[in-house]
Structure formats: C-alpha cells, structure tokens
C-alpha cells in the first residue's frame, strides 16, 4: 500500500515531496502498420533510442538503470511503494488515429539478429528462470503477470512472414507451454510482429496457454515456413500497467489514475517503464508521440 488515505497521499506529495512528473517524446522512424502495435523505445527522441545490446539468444534483464533508454522514476523507495497518479499523451500525425498508449514494465528481452532471424528452425534461448527473490530481475515473483511480444528491434524486417512459435515455462516452471503467431513481412523498427489485423495475430501480447498466469522462462523461438529475408527482433518480457486512448491527432488526453479502475498501479523498484503504441491506421513517418505521467510514493 502506498498511502493510508487520500489525505496521506496529498501530504506525501505536497509536504514531503514524494512524487514527480516524467515526460518522454518519440518521433516514429517509419510508417506504422494499421491495426498493429509499436514499441516506442527503439525510436528516436527521449529517452534515447534503444539498440537492445546483448548476446544473441541470451536473456537480458533490464531495470531502471538500463543504459539504453529507460525512464527514471525516483529510484528505489522500498519499504514504501510507488504508484502512477496520472497519465497523459498526445500523438501528432497525419494518419493513424485513433491510437492507444500502453505503459509496460520491460523486465527483459532476448535479442535475435542476422541468421537467427533469417533462417528457420529452433533458436534456443539461454535464460535463468525468474524466481521469487529480492533481485530486481525477479520484481514480478516467478514471472506472474508477465507477457511476451516479438518486436522488430534495430533492423527493419525483410520480406516473408514465417510462423513463429515461442516455447516458455509458465509461472510454476511447468514446461511444454507454447504460443504461436504468424509474423508480418517488412515491419518497421519497433513494430510488434505478433500484432496486426490479420488472422493469427495477437494484440499486443502473445496468448498464454490455458491456465497460465505468467512467464518465468523463455525457452526457445522457432521460425517455421519461409524465414524473414532479414531483420532483427527481440522477444520482450513485460508487465502491462495501464492504457490510455488517444482519439485524434493533436488531442491531448489525460487520465486520472488515482480514481481510475484499478487505481494507482504500482511502479516496482527497478521498473523499466516503456510504452507501446497501437494505431488504427498506418501512422505517418515522423509522427510524434508525447507521453507524461505523474507518480508518487508514501511511507
């Protein structure tokens, strides 16, 4: 619990200064895909464009010290807890409306480049399963609540649309869980391959097997059919936090998260806050996305 009452919330913010405002802005590197989602972190702006460094097929945990474009939200506050208070956003683009903005906590990613993308077959991932420790990498114990997506990371995708299968361990460590989608050819940087308006697409996260409530380990990625001609991707592992509708270009939307349902979603210590953008139409290249949010903590 962050606060004991709204009186306490106001006191912590106004008297003790336990809160702040965060802003970010991104300019889309390429035209979006209608009905698909885009991870904003590899796009230019502030924070800096992510390049998703790391050895291929090796899981990279991320937190609020990630050097590739995380947003600082005041650092660790334990034993208090930190929460969102408001969220605002605006997209200015000639096409693409309406949009949604979704905030996520990017817990980690697995990079795949060159032949790990341009060839079919099983790509085995090296990852230590998430568990229930005080480590920031385990900030969602045993991966409960975490979801996966596959996004073009640094190099835009080439031709062809293979079938992609992700094998993972669920929140209890049980093996054999699999999720499958059909990729999309020629998606731009940041766009989620598993999203779109066609069949076998899932917006914005991969579905989990029946009964699963999270992901504790990414085991492998399998490309089947005809591989992408080129491109680089990440398998993202994240916790969805909130969603904000942006109905029209230039229209600034503000959401009261203190009273929204559910209210005041927690920002875990070490959270790497990133954003996904859904576009109804193909958002214009060079379109700008501005997002802000307020946070606070008590204790």
């Amino acid at each position, binding site marked *: *619990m*962050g*606060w*004991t*009452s*709204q*009186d306490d*919330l106001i006191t912590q913010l106004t008297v003790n200064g336990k809160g702040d405002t965060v802003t970010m802005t991104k300019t889309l590197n390429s035209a979006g895909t209608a009905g698909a989602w885009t991870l904003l972190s590899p796009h230019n702006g502030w924070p800096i464009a992510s390049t998703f460094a790391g050895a291929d097929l090796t899981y990279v945990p991320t937190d609020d010290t990630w050097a590739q474009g995380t947003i600082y939200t005041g650092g660790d506050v334990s034993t208090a*807890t930190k*929460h969102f208070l408001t969220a605002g956003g*605006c997209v200015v683009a000639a096409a693409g409306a309406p949009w949604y903005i979704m905030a996520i906590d990017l817990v980690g990613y697995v990079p795949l480049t060159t032949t790990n993308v341009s060839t079919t077959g099983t790509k085995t991932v090296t990852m230590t399963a998430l568990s229930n420790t005080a480590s920031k990498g385990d900030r969602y114990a045993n991966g409960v609540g975490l979801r996966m997506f596959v996004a073009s990371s640094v190099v835009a995708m080439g031709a062809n649309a293979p079938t992609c299968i992700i094998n993972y361990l669920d929140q209890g460590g049980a093996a054999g869980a699999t999720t499958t989608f059909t990729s999309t050819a020629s998606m731009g940087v940041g766009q989620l391959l598993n999203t779109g308006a066609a069949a076998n697409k899932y917006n914005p996260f991969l579905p989990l097997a029946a009964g699963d409530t999270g992901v504790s380990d990414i085991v492998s990625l399998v490309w089947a059919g005809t591989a992408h001609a080129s491109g680089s991707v990440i398998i993202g592992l994240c916790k969805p936090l909130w969603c*904000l*509708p942006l*109905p*029209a*270009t*230039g*229209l*600034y*939307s*503000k*959401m*009261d*998260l*203190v*009273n*929204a*349902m*559910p*209210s*005041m*979603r*927690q920002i875990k210590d070490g959270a790497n806050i990133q954003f996904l953008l859904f576009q109804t139409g193909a958002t214009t290249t060079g379109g700008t996305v501005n997002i802000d949010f307020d946070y606070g903590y008590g204790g």
Partner: protein
Amino acid sequence: MALRSNGNMARSVGVQHFGASAYLSAIPSALQSNFAHTNKIRNLTAGEGITSELVGIPSGSLHPSAWMMPQKAGAIAARNTVVGTGTSTATGQSGYNIDGTISGAGDIPNTVSIGLIVSIAAALTASGGISSAATQALASLVADITGSSSVTATAAGLAELGALLSAAGFVTANNTALMDIASTIRGYGDLTPEGIRDVVWAKIVEAGFSAEEIMRLLAAHAAGSATGLESGNPQFTGLDGSTLRIDGTYAAGTRTIDALNGT
C-alpha cells in the same frame, strides 16, 4: 443516426481530452460534464495505491460531511491534532500528590528540580547515574531509587523519608533536618561493624606490622610454647600451637631477632 456522446463518454471514467480536435462529433475540451466525478472517485481504494476500504474523503467522514463515502465503516479521524516526538523539561512545584513511574535508559541530570511537593511516590529506575538531584521541602517522600551506578543527592527538609536505596556503587548523601527517616542501607561501607573492625585491626602500628599481627606476636611471647630458652636459640610458637612466631638468638646478654611471623 446513432446517438453520439459528444466527447463526454471517456471523461466520466477518468479520461479527459484537451485540444481543438473533434472527437465524437464535438470538441471535448469545450464540454464539461459531471464536475464532481461522483462515479469514479469511489475507485480510489480499488487498486494498489490505497487499499484500505475504510478510506473516505475527507478521512473518517460520513454523510452528510463526506465528499466520498468510505466503502466500509470503521475509520476514525482526528482534526487539529498535533503529534510529535521530542523532549520535555519541566519543574513541578506546589503539587498535591504525584504518583508515577519514571524509567529511562539515560541519566536524570541536574536540570531536574522538584520542590514543595506534599507527597511524591515514585520509582526512579535508571541504568545510568542520578547526579546532583535536589529534593527539598517534601512532606513525604516514598521512593525506590535503584541504580547500577552512583547516586549522588541532597535531601533536605524532609518531614518523612521512607526510601529503599539499593546500589552497586556508592551512595553519597547529605540528609539534614529530618524529622523521621526509615530506611534500609545496604553496603559494605565504612559505617558497618564489619567495616569498623577491619579498619581498626588493619592499622599499621610499626615496621609494617598491623595491629592484628602485633597481637599474634605478643600472644606467642606471653602464652605460646617455646624452645631453646637454655641453649641461646629461643623460638616462640603461636597460640595455634604450630606457627613459629618469634625466632631469635641470645648470647652474652644480647637478644637478636632472626624472624617474626604475625600473619
């Protein structure tokens, strides 16, 4: 043609739109709806930030003063209350009765002044020392003073002092003009029979011999067994019958002492 909400729809769930762009057939920032937000403010406790269902706005308020009724009854709020942690220094005088317990891990310093109390019943317990405290003009003082260190105090003008002083250290006191003192003083100090006995007999009388040692030597000479009295090598044994107390020689009218043992 279907009815459109003219921009108000999202606002009622906590989202507001600003800007000169049409949304659902209208510019939403120009359309203000339901300023009180009575539907959504009840979501305040429906999340991770404030989880107590007792919370109302303002806290502890009910109808008709509450802006938002709590989900459940049970909260209590206090207004205009000052809560703080600090220290207090006080002088109590002309009181009638004081009954209390004072406990502390530190000292009771000489800034404490208690005067003109008719009756005081108190237990003073401290792991430190009680120094330079002045207790004056008390009609009655009933107290347990317990300390692991020293107690240094001046008690004057007491009508009655009933006290139990227990200390592992020393008690240094100056009691004057007392009508009645009932107390138990425990300690192996100067004024006990045992202490007086030990000091007297330990007095060094001459040449490093204490009064006790000299008494043993005299007893041996006067009443102890002796050998060598005819051979010029006299030796006197103590009253215990075994310890050689005086060992000397005698020749040509001269007595020489070889050894004395008074212990």
